[in-house]
């Protein structure tokens, strides 16, 4: 029997993860509402004339980062139950394939989160977005999600196995994704036109997001097997 290709494994793992989420509805019923309540709490904490409107881009991405921690924990909790990840490895699947599959599934979920959070910002924080801004937002969301997912899948692999490991994820993940927060927030400011930021100032940030995503997709493909090796 020939070994399945990395690409096929990735697709299979991603499809499996998304199927689990569709059926268990944990993301939809627990984590999405969490992201929503974070947006409401920001409004309580920062309720000053016009402040919310100005800082809305940052709040959208902070809420995304917080949610991404829970989504990553969730996606690896699924793997640690019944030692599912060990089973995947014993089956001889290439770790790079498992990693890329995790990244795909995480990216899909994070894009969904960002869409919901942007809509919430439009409704709750009275920001508005033009058509050009929407294109920029979609691009930002895609690129930032890939970077976040790659980083999350890498460090999420470490958090498997109990013994207080879950608490390690935020400590490793949040400093590492600071470039995403900076770039995505600046791009979103341009998309929302916050503080009169022109749209064209948003696009250069895509370069940083792209480099980040590419670098850690590469790093994860190489390092994931070692990180989850028990």
């Amino acid at each position, binding site marked *: 029997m020939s070994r399945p290709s990395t690409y096929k494994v990735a697709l299979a793992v991603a499809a499996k993860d998304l199927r689990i989420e569709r059926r268990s509805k944990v993301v939809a019923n627990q984590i999405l509402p969490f992201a929503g309540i974070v947006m409401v709490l920001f409004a309580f904490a920062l309720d000053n004339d016009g402040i919310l409107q100005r800082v809305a881009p940052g709040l959208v991405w902070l809420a995304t980062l917080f949610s991404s921690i829970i989504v990553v924990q969730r996606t690896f909790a699924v793997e640690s139950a019944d030692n599912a990840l060990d089973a995947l490895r014993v089956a001889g699947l290439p770790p790079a394939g498992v990693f890329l599959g995790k990244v795909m599934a995480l990216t899909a979920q994070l894009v969904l989160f960002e869409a919901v959070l942007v809509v919430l910002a439009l409704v709750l924080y009275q920001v508005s977005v033009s058509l050009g801004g929407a294109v920029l937002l979609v691009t930002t969301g895609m690129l930032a999600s890939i970077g976040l997912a790659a980083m999350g899948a*890498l460090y999420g692999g*470490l958090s498997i196995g109990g013994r207080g490991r879950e608490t390690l994820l935020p400590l490793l993940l949040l*400093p*590492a994704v*600071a470039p995403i927060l*900076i770039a995505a927030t600046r791009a979103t400011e341009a998309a929302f036109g916050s503080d009169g930021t022109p749209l064209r100032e948003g696009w250069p940030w895509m370069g940083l997001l792209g480099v980040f995503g590419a670098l*850690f997709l590469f*790093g994860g493909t190489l*390092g994931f097997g070692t990180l989850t090796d028990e």
Partner: protein
Amino acid sequence: MNTSLRPASTAPASTAPPTRTPASFKLGVAVILGMVLLALLGLFFTDEDIVQGSTVRIMYVHVPTAWVAYLAFVVTALGSAAYLWGKQHSLTFDRVAGASAEVGVLFMGLTLVTGSLWGRITWGTYWQWDPRLTTTAFLFVTYIGYLAVRGLGGTHQQRAKRSAVVALLAVLEIPLVHFSVVLWRSLHQEASVLRPDGDVTMDGLMLFTLLFGVAVFTAAFVWLVLHRQRVLTMADAVETSGLDAAVAMRRSEAGGTDGKDGTDGSGIDGSDR
């Protein structure tokens, strides 16, 4: 390589050698004497700075600690790479990386403290969101995370592999973080921070004191890493032989008495193997 670390006797704790060797003892004495001399130079023999006054004396500590912290993280990265790509996967490289990161976090903390004290007096604030400071804070947190990864448990080889990958990922992260922070600041430049180190021409003795400080702190780094690395080696050996000792104890119990009921040396068996 690590098999030689495993003590043959079953009671390693009582016969554990000190982490001192004649060479590292001499180094330690030299470091202490150097620190005393540095303190004398920095506090008494050098003049006050024309612009900064006495606060410039913080620099004789601040600059060396920052240098040592960065050096330590380079050593951690090199040790991790040497471990991963070495044919033997030598745990010595892993322990050097770990010891160096510990010392690096300590010195980075000192850098942040001395820097913010200096900043309070010179800039009027403890903290400035300047790229260099921000990246330094990120480094600090990142290596705290690295040390946490080292403490995850598992076998020594697992620990070494895991932490080596995390250390190399950190090497990828840091330039990106720094670059993005620079971009972030370039957009939101409110006021240019006074850059006192830009146009200061240093008096000879001040420059000498600064360089001497760097040399003494580097020696202190080597000294601390040597000892920490030896302590880590012993800790690993205790974990390994602790299990053997517990097994041997159970065997002797089984041979000696028949009325044993579940008494074991559970306190010392390697529970995180």
